[in-house]
């Protein structure tokens, strides 16, 4: 299952293909403790184009931050590849890669060194990457770029003297110091006050439009993703479920999970609040449900959803969803027949050891529950 977004937008700068990441978690207690794999991200493909914003939307635990961290090469994927300009990215995290791909973190209260002035925070990348000889002009230019004026005044302040929005601007300026081509923004506004969030989003939009920066915007707020992004991809329990141009995705959501997400988002324009009592919660990633990860919560779940994970299908131009509802019935029957014959089609290249997962029990439970 891979929702392909490579077709959207030209000039793909950074691309992730079939990324998979698992973490080893301890299970049980004492002498009987064993280890299990927690699949945080499974078979996720995302591409970020120059002058484009791609938003990754999902609930906490859906793996969206893990994707961003893998792209920043803060953590190493267990499978899949990362392509920079169509060429496989180098192993490790060489300086050359960091110079092109920069990350902005969620919490500006934690991501800036509190004992150094703003100037120091900005000088470090300028010096390490030998960006410019005129450090002072470089710092002033960066602060102006993020609308912190007058720059001299802000450069001599400590992070605690700044408001949350100003700190996040400094964090963005620091990421811009090396003149990157890709900016990975991990929930850049969720810690900020509502009245200043739009300011930061508008700054990102401006960087995209004037500097042609490729931006990955990771967020749980689908309304802000609609506002900022060109493309939205939705993640659920470590997998991509839907990818589409942002307006198309929010106006005509194809995947039931996206529909749930949209109906849960606050929307004062709605005449009557929706009712979604007992819609369940995201599954455990150590023992995820078989087939489609969303089937235990899905109001439209069919027999096949319990057993076979859905392929990604194109619903309309540039709009893909990984859901059996959008697969034509002929193909569905073929797949169903194959899985019934004992040929398990997972649509996932990640082969994993069997005993670590209790797929079977979950599947049986889900089926019996429906009956």
């Amino acid at each position, binding site marked *: 299952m891979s929702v392909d977004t490579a077709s959207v937008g030209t000039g793909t700068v950074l691309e992730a293909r079939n990324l998979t990441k698992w973490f080893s978690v301890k299970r049980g207690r004492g002498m009987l403790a064993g280890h299990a794999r927690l699949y945080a991200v499974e078979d996720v493909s995302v591409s970020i184009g120059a002058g484009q914003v791609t938003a990754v939307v999902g609930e906490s635990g859906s793996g969206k931050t893990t994707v961003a961290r893998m792209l920043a090469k803060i953590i190493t994927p267990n499978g899949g590849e990362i392509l920079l300009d169509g060429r496989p990215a180098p192993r490790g995290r060489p300086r050359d890669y960091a110079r092109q791909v920069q990350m902005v973190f969620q919490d500006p209260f934690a991501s800036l060194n509190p004992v150094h002035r703003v100037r120091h925070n900005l000088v470090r990348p300028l010096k390490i990457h030998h960006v410019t000889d005129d450090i002072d002009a470089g710092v002033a230019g960066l602060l102006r770029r993020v609308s912190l004026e007058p720059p001299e005044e802000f450069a001599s302040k400590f992070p605690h003297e700044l408001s949350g929005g100003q700190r996040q601007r400094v964090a963005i300026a620091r990421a811009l110091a090396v003149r990157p081509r890709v900016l990975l923004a991990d929930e850049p506004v969720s810690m900020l006050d*509502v009245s200043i969030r*739009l300011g930061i989003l508008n700054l990102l939009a401006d960087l995209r439009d004037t500097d042609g920066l490729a931006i990955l915007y990771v967020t749980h707020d689908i309304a802000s993703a609609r506002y900022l992004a060109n493309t939205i991809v939705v993640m659920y329990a470590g997998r991509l479920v839907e990818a589409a141009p*942002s*307006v198309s995705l929010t106006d005509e959501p194809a995947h039931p999970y996206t529909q749930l997400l949209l109906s849960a*988002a606050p929307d004062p324009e709605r005449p009557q609040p929706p009712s979604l*009592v*007992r*819609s369940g919660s995201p599954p455990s990633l150590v023992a995820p449900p078989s087939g489609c990860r969303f089937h235990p919560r899905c109001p439209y779940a069919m027999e096949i959803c319990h057993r076979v994970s859905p392929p990604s299908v194109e619903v309309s131009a540039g709009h893909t969803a990984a859901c059996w509802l959008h697969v034509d019935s002929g193909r569905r029957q073929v797949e169903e027949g194959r899985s019934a014959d004992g040929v398990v089609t997972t649509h996932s290249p990640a082969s994993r050891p069997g005993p670590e997962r209790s797929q079977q029990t979950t599947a049986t439970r889900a089926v019996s529950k429906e009956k």
Partner: protein
Amino acid sequence: MIAPEAPAGNPAATPVQLAEPVLEIRGLCVDYGYGVDAVSAVVDCDLVLRRGEVMGLAGESGSGKSTLAMAALRLLRSPGVITGGEVLFHSKPFSDEGPRGTIDLLAASEADLRAVRWSEISVVLQSALNSLNPVITIGAQFEDLLKVHRPSFSKRDRWDRSAELLDMVGMTADRLRSYPHELSGGMRQRAMIAMALALEPQVILLDEPTTALDVVTQREILEELMGLREQLGFAALFITHDLSLLVELADEIAVMYAGRLMERAPAASLFRAPRLPYTYGLLNCFPPMHGPRRAMEGIPGSPPDLRLLPTGCAFHPRCPWAMERCRQERPVLRALGGPDREVACWLHAGAATIPDELNHPEPPAAGRRPAATGRARAARVRR
């Protein structure tokens, strides 16, 4: 007991009889620190919470919304100091126990407060993990609570009541044996809500109860909470920074800025026809989910430092319609076209022309929905 009279107003604007007040905050002032270093976090706030209604309190961080609520219940920690005002609690308990009549919470003795807290007024805080005791099970925490407040209950009664409460918020009774860390964030917050409702309070204070949760969980919990309000008839003071959420949820919304109440209106009126530039700005901070995408500006600048408040109206440096008068004189909260609305803004003081953005007509259905009466409670299992 003070018999509160419904304010005489335009009957067309308020078709539904206003419910009687249950919590009245009058002129509440709170400082942090003493003497010259004192910072005024809440200044001269008046708020009336009516029986069975949801009052939303919106504002940015540092606007004093949590301080106001905590001070009103005398839960404020040092260095917070209540420097003035009164908080009248008109108690009419649902159960046979509990005090009756009007109590000034700010003047009440510890013993009187003890009789009111939790059993008549309860609190749900933002971080459920920090509110629950991590080393004992959920069931043991219910047990503690019921043992103290319902001494007549047997052990069996307490367990049954705990199970019933968990069922009410959509959890199964086997969760009583779980420790807080074994529950998801949403479950923990549900357990907190069940605990807050355990003694059938008349007022429940919700301080950002769902801010740390995912949207789907948030929606589920709020739905359950609102259903329970219909059923049990409690009044709620709902504090959040998410104005778009309040619009869907609250009967009435009060907006705070820099420690003062700046606008108060029925939820629909506030959303459709905001009168305060700050409210207008806040509403424009939430990108819409429908329609064409357009650039939005939010509110320029950043929230003020309470130690260095601007002169005049605290919002004037960020206000697009600021006038000379706003820089010099501080506007006071005044009624606007009926008893339902109040706004503190010079634009509405008569002399100035009101910008179109702040002069939308009141929505037709601006009347309140009838307050929850808790009639369904009779049908519930009662002991």
